[in-house]
């Protein structure tokens, strides 16, 4: 393709993108003069270049568009959405034409009369624009012109109204002046006029211009004719340019076409100066500023030279004086325009690419890519040399190598920088998309973009462009509700989508937030169940957020039906795949009714990354530094050792349990006998933090990521391979893949643990009794459950082997062993924990009472082992929390065989019914816990309705909810109504607990959604009602 044409295409496409954005801005702020000027200038440039290249269709469309814009600028037309739509349509047409041009290198056949007619009608004030306002502004505008022209051309009279109304003599002068401008432009651009397409409405002043443009004879402008006509003027300009080039003030271009285009710009500038068109003067001056450093001396020399050149065409000298004077008078416009433009670009950081005095150069992307590859190779070779030199004691190469090394680093940085682009480039199309969508959907959406100047690698930018667009489209389409619905929901009618981009430790974080409807987890949940993505039990265990993440799931997002239900999801899995492909992560939070926020985290660059070199089984691997949080050295024994919970390795990292993955297991190496020492690479994937256990850690190295061979593509554990400094090949581990290799549900589990931990630490500070029994792991039991600690003479325990019992306070008390390892003492006193429940008493034999600790159970791993609720860290020890209900079940089932508590029979020993108690009085709350715990329930407390509802949001499930009625904030009745409205607790039985006990209260309680009503302090009634409710509803709701 012709160089000039391809450059034109790139430039015009860029300009159009800018105009797209600016138009949307203009629509929002119709009075923003600066924006309007910018748009006008860009469209004008497009038109000019099209003419210059001989592209009549493009030029005609651009011309009509510019016309409308001109009317905006002069205040003759109001900026209305309809008019903007029309201009956007003309931009779209231009884009279509450009696309065709790019393919065929010629304008496609066709006719744009429809669009041009509309544009012209609009410019005329018909159709969408409001003509009423035009007249008033018209006068003002014309007055300004008239003053100016008066000064310039005193011999002529000035029109005081629009052209149609002028008397012939006066009108002629002005018309002719305009004509000559366009005439000149045409002459410079050497392009056929678009008049063919323009036929039909001679009423338009533009049309008049175009017509006369064709007719040389029409040019009878007083000034120009006198100075030698068109040929004379353009000839003069060219001479001026030439001599400028010779003086070194203005670059000489080998390409005569470019030279001519610049000449045209200069010509416009000078002409505008003569006719006092200040807009054009300023615009042209700042356009040309790239090439010409304006200053007074230069202007003076131009005007002098111009004068002498024109004189050669026999122009009368008084006219030339006038011209020169006019030009000098405009000097303040030209020079400040240049300076102002400089300042503006510097200060406002628009990143529009108009680089002020910055010299820019267009470079083919492939060249940059090649350069990058070469630099990558250079870095590798440098690393190799470094390694070689390091091995020899004293090398003569050391010093030059150091220098080489430094240069290489700088070169690498430089090349990387050339590839960096502001993320705003990927965003530039978004305002238009949002605008169009909001018109299409009749929504009102504001798009806010922050951090558009955040830079990232070109390649990355290209790759996230589509996912980003998709997500914003999704937010506008499905996220933001209709204005009426928003109003109903108590939100402003205008929805808002906010884009943010910022750096965060070697990453770019992009957030896309909308304040729309959010994601309805219930519906998604149902859909996930329907599609078999998860079982009901799994879903029950998930928090709302986890369920919402199903939208990233392929199975969910492709089905059309889901889209209509969940409102989101088309292609979200594709979005995720694309982002993960470049080593990024995507996450989201959604608040039903309040909005959704997506977080995208992507690496700055893909080509060269810093990586940690580790060793496992004498093989080295690289782990991208980006994923590594920290390194921990684990000893064989002692404080910093790896502990095991039933073969699952964990590590205590600052009082949190870190799940571990042995790299040798992931890679299928033979397990080695107890390693003396190990290193734990604490790694983060999304929100999942885990440790990769390796044998050895070496240093970090800059590596060039090369994709693995197709034969290895299937292995998700590797993200690539590279050559190290010593020349050896090394595989790069993909932390995502490593994590996935171990368990697909790790993330879920981890989050559950986090949730649980957070919850427990918030509400469940409790005194725990620590004791040992059987094995070494300390056991813990809430002290509130233990009735007494007894030391009983071993000899008093009867039937020790089969059914150990002891006579205790006049009753026979069963004594249970903690586990099979527990042995009763041979002699002396046997410590026994005594648990009492109503009439029944049982004892659990233990070896030793260790301690009482007030603790928040910071981390709990749940377990399937009988009699153990889970593992916690209590006072820096891994502790088993024992499940008393399990033991009491054994004790009472075996010994009394009474169907005692409904709670237990309904829920089984391993899963005691979870009960939520909502009660504002601390006294009652504290009383309820031991009472209900003793009855075998797991109790969670909430001090008011809000706290309870928060738990619901977080996805907690309960088998039963007991709520007080009179509470500050929401009353119990309100809570019940809220719960029954929907959400995960909709069908959970609720019991009201109140000191109010009139029939009316009972009645209101039922109405608002309580299943039953119990008067406070009636313990037996409460327990009875609870087991009744659980008996009826328990099975179906038990988590």
């Amino acid at each position: 393709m012709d160089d000039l044409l391809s450059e034109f295409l790139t430039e015009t496409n860029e300009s159009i993108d800018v105009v797209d954005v600016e138009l949307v801005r203009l629509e929002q702020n119709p009075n923003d003069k600066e924006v309007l000027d910018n748009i006008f200038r860009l469209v004008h440039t497009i038109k000019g270049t099209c003419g210059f290249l001989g592209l009549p269709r493009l030029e005609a469309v651009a011309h009509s568009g510019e016309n409308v814009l001109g009317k905006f600028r002069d205040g003759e037309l109001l900026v209305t959405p309809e008019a903007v739509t029309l201009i956007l349509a003309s931009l779209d047409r231009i884009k279509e034409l450009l696309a065709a041009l790019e393919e065929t290198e010629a304008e496609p056949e066709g006719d744009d009369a429809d669009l041009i007619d509309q544009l012209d009608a609009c410019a005329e004030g018909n159709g969408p624009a409001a003509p009423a306002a035009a007249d008033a502004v018209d006068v003002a505008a014309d007055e300004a012109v008239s003053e100016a022209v008066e000064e310039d051309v005193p011999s002529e009279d000035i029109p005081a109204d629009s052209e149609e109304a002028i008397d012939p003599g006066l009108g002629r002068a002005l018309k002719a002046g305009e004509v000559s401008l366009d005439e000149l432009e045409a002459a410079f651009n050497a392009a056929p006029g678009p008049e063919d397409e323009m036929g039909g409405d001679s009423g338009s002043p533009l049309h008049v211009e175009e017509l006369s443009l064709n007719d040389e004879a029409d040019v009878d402008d007083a000034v120009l004719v006198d100075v030698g006509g068109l040929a004379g003027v353009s000839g003069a300009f060219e001479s001026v340019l030439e001599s400028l080039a010779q003086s070194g003030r203005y670059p000489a271009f080998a390409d005569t076409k470019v030279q001519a285009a610049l000449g045209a710009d200069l010509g416009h500038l000078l002409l505008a100066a003569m006719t006092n068109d200040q807009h054009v003067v300023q615009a042209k001056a700042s356009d040309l500023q790239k090439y010409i450093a304006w200053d007074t001396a230069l202007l003076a020399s131009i005007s002098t030279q111009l004068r002498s050149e024109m004189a050669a065409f026999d122009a009368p000298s008084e006219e030339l004086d006038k011209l020169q004077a006019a030009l000098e008078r405009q000097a303040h416009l030209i020079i400040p325009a240049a300076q102002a433009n400089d300042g503006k670009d510097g200060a406002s950081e628009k990143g529009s690419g108009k680089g002020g005095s910055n010299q820019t150069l267009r470079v083919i992307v492939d060249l940059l890519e090649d350069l990058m590859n070469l630099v990558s190779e250079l870095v590798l070779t440098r690393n190799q040399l470094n390694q070689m030199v390091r091995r020899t004691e004293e090398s003569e190469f050391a010093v030059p190598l150091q220098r080489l090394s430094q240069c290489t680093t700088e070169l690498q940085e430089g090349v990387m920088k050339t590839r960096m682009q502001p993320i705003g480039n990927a965003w530039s199309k978004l305002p238009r998309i949002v605008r169009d969508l909001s018109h299409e959907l009749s929504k009102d959406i504001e798009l806010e973009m922050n951090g558009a100047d955040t830079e990232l690698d070109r390649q990355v930018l290209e790759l996230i462009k589509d996912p980003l667009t998709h997500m914003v489209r999704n937010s506008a389409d499905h996220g933001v509700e209709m204005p009426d619905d928003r109003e109903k929901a108590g939100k402003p009618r205008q929805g808002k989508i906010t884009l943010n981009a910022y750096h965060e430790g070697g990453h770019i974080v992009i957030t896309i937030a909308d304040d729309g409807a959010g994601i309805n987890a219930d519906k998604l949940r149902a859909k996930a169940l329907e599609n078999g993505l998860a079982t009901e039990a799994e879903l029950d265990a998930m928090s709302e957020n986890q369920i919402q993440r199903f939208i990233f799931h392929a199975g969910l997002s492709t089905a059309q039906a889901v889209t209509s239900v969940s409102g989101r999801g088309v292609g979200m899995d594709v979005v995720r795949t694309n982002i993960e492909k470049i080593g990024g992560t995507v996450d989201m939070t959604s608040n039903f009714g309040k909005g959704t926020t997506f977080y995208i985290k992507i690496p700055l660059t893909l080509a060269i990354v810093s990586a940690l070199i580790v060793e496992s089984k004498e093989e080295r691997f690289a782990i991208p530094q980006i994923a590594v949080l920290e390194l921990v050295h684990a000893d064989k024994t002692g404080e910093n050792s790896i502990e095991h919970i039933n073969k699952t390795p964990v590590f205590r990292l600052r009082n949190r349990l870190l799940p571990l993955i042995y790299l040798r297991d992931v890679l299928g190496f033979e397990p080695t006998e107890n390693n003396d020492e190990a290193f734990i690479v604490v790694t983060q994937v999304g929100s999942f933090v885990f440790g990769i256990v390796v044998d050895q850690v070496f240093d970090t190295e800059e590596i060039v990521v090369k994709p693995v061979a197709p034969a290895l593509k299937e292995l998700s554990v590797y993200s690539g391979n590279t050559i190290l400094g010593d020349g050896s090949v090394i595989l790069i581990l993909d932390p995502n893949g490593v994590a996935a290799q171990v368990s697909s549900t790790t993330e879920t589990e981890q989050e559950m643990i986090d949730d649980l931990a957070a919850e427990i630490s918030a509400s469940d500070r409790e005194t725990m009794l620590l004791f040992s029994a059987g094995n070494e792991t300390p056991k813990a039991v809430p002290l509130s459950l233990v009735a007494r600690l007894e030391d009983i003479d071993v000899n008093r325990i009867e039937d020790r082997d089969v059914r150990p019992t002891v006579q205790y306070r006049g009753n026979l008390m069963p004594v249970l062993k903690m586990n099979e390892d527990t042995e009763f003492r041979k002699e002396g006193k046997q410590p026994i924990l005594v648990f009492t429940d109503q009439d029944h008493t049982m004892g659990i034999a233990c070896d030793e009472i260790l301690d009482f600790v007030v603790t928040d159970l910071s981390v709990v791993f749940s377990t399937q082992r009988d009699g153990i609720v889970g593992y916690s860290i209590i006072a820096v020890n891994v502790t088993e929390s024992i499940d008393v209900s399990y033991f009491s079940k054994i004790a009472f089932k075996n010994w009394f065989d009474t169907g005692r508590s409904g709670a237990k029979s309904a829920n089984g020993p391993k899963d005691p019914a979870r009960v939520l108690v909502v009660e504002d009085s601390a006294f009652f709350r504290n009383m309820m816990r031991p009472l209900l715990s003793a009855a075998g329930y797991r109790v969670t407390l909430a001090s008011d309705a809000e706290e309870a509802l928060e738990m619901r949001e977080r996805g907690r499930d309960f088998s039963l909810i007991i709520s007080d009625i009179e509470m500050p904030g929401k009353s119990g009745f309100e809570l019940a109504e809220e719960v029954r409205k929907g959400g995960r607790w909709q069908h959970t039985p609720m019991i009201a607990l109140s000191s109010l006990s009139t029939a009316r209260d009972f009645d209101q309680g039922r109405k608002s959604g309580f299943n039953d009503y119990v008067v406070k302090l009636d313990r037996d009634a409460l327990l009875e009602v609870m087991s009744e409710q659980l008996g009826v509803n328990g099975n179906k709701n038990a988590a």
Partner: protein
Amino acid sequence: MTEVSAPSQDFVTLRLAGQLIGIPVLQVHDVLKAQNMTPVPIAETWVAGLINLRGRIVTCIDLRARLGLPQQTPSDDSEEDVIHRMSVVVEQNGEPYSLLIDKVGDVLSLPIDDYERNPITLEPSWAEVSAGVYRLDGELLVILDVDRLLDFATLADAA
């Protein structure tokens, strides 16, 4: 194969578990001695590892494993001139692969008349990657179809 147009064709001969194998000489980029390989854990068994060949990362394919042959045992080393684990480097779609073989032999120029198609009774694992057979004096030369050998898409399907 271009056997129709050319009266004779040049092949690099290799030996693998006693069988003589030929690869069109133009497809062979390099012949390598034993190299330091980086193993690729959890990959297919026939992926022997990765080597650095003048700055390029080359995937090594264990041809014995790929063709379902038993691994080399000391008893196979009866011939004196066996150089263990030599390899030839070929390319597939611009991606270099190194084929691990027992021994590299001469380059033979073979008349097209001696060419024959695969016997239909040839084992499927061989038939899949064999482009035909040349009758030599006292021996048969199996022509290796490198493209099909390294076509991992179909390989995955087959597996």
